[in-house]
């Protein structure tokens, strides 16, 4: 893949990669690290996206890199990292509720709510079955209902 095309993909999808990583990790700094990992992998060119599947490939790489990073956190016994906790954040209640979900649920919520991706494609990105996507989404919704004061009907 030509450098120009790599740059175009970076401009088009860097924020999406960042947001997915952020939803996993709850840390802007770590999400930036994931972003760098993903796009350097693209630049190395050892593997790459199929035409028309560029965004999915980048999101898959972001999910994998985020999971790797989470594992390394656990290894260091740091645990969850809600570093950007939102005293002054708009919609802090929603942020806290989402970040209270286990990371693997947050990723599904993000891909479904933010990216608007269907269950099948979410499964492909996260390497899980469609049933597992449904299970996670259903459990995430139940947890969000508990956390949020909204009308449960709107979740």
């Amino acid at each position: 893949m030509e450098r120009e095309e790599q740059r175009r993909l970076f401009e088009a999808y860097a924020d999406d990669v960042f947001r997915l990583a952020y939803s996993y990790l709850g840390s802007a700094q770590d999400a930036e690290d994931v972003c760098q990992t993903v796009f350097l992998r693209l630049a190395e060119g050892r593997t790459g996206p199929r035409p028309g599947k560029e965004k999915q490939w980048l999101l898959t790489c972001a999910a994998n890199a985020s999971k790797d990073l989470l594992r390394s956190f656990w290894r260091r016994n740091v645990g969850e990292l809600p570093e950007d906790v939102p005293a002054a954040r708009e919609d802090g209640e929603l942020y806290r509720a989402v970040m209270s979900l286990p990371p693997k649920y947050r990723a599904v919520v993000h891909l479904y709510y933010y990216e608007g991706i269907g269950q099948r494609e979410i499964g492909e990105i996260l390497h899980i079955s469609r049933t597992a996507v449904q299970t996670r989404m259903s459990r995430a919704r139940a947890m969000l209902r508990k956390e949020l004061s909204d009308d449960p009907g709107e979740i």
Partner: protein
Amino acid sequence: MIQERYKKMMERETLRDVAKASILERMEQTEARRPVRWPALAAACLCLALLGTAIAAAATGGFGLWAESRPNGDGGNDLSVAAKQKLFGEDEFSDALQKDMEAVRESGTASVCYPPDWQAARDYVGVPLLENCFLDGRETFEPPEGKPDHSLHVSLHPGLVYLYRPYEVDGLLLTVSTGIFTEEYDGDPILGEWVPFWWGNHAANGDGTVTFRGDDDGAGGVFRLDETWTETMPDGTEVLYTRWSRAGVEGCWLGADFVHDGIGYALDIFEIWRDMPGLEVAFAPCGPETGYEDILRQAVEGFVFE
């Protein structure tokens, strides 16, 4: 709507300009590498026929397959597969494991711990376990609500360190288990350095079938070992594949076993077990189109053999 609120919230989260510039700069400096090409696998097939109770020992490379003549309590003969595995000295394990093994020795009971991931398990064990680029990033198989989560665990027994890890691959449960024998092992070193790879539950019935006698919880049944064959990895590691079927149940149980650096690895896809009474795990429904053999082979090839 929650979706709108979520979108609005996340749209404010963007990569900082300084980070963008830094990543772009590093991308420019990164030299393209040649794509990885997996060497073609040299496959050598060797079928080991099950001839009933009078099976002679049949050995190939790192594996032996035979029925022992000792009585198994059911009037039949146990079926064993043994492999050339190393008996590790205690000082080859990590300090943490040695300490825990000492406690196991004193108490006489097995100890189980739950590392968060394979890397943590490798660190805990201390001896060189293989990495797997295909399975990296896969999730633990998600059980249905109310079912226990069979997470990665390491159990210590006198003479044996055992790791078990379930993965979900395309909706299938794929388990990877690893047995590391120590010099304390005093079970059945059947022929010198040969130690059991499977042991305990298989009895040859004499009619081409094998009974998996099962656990105390009632899981078990009669399985037919339909086929075994071996394939050789590029570094010479020999992988023993086994295909089992169960009367009246569509699908199969497919296993792949190999020994690397003296450590035994067993990978299994238990498609036929999904309706087995007494098993408290979930199995995604799948049909022949799922390609479980391809998945198992990909998982085996994902190990970084060196």
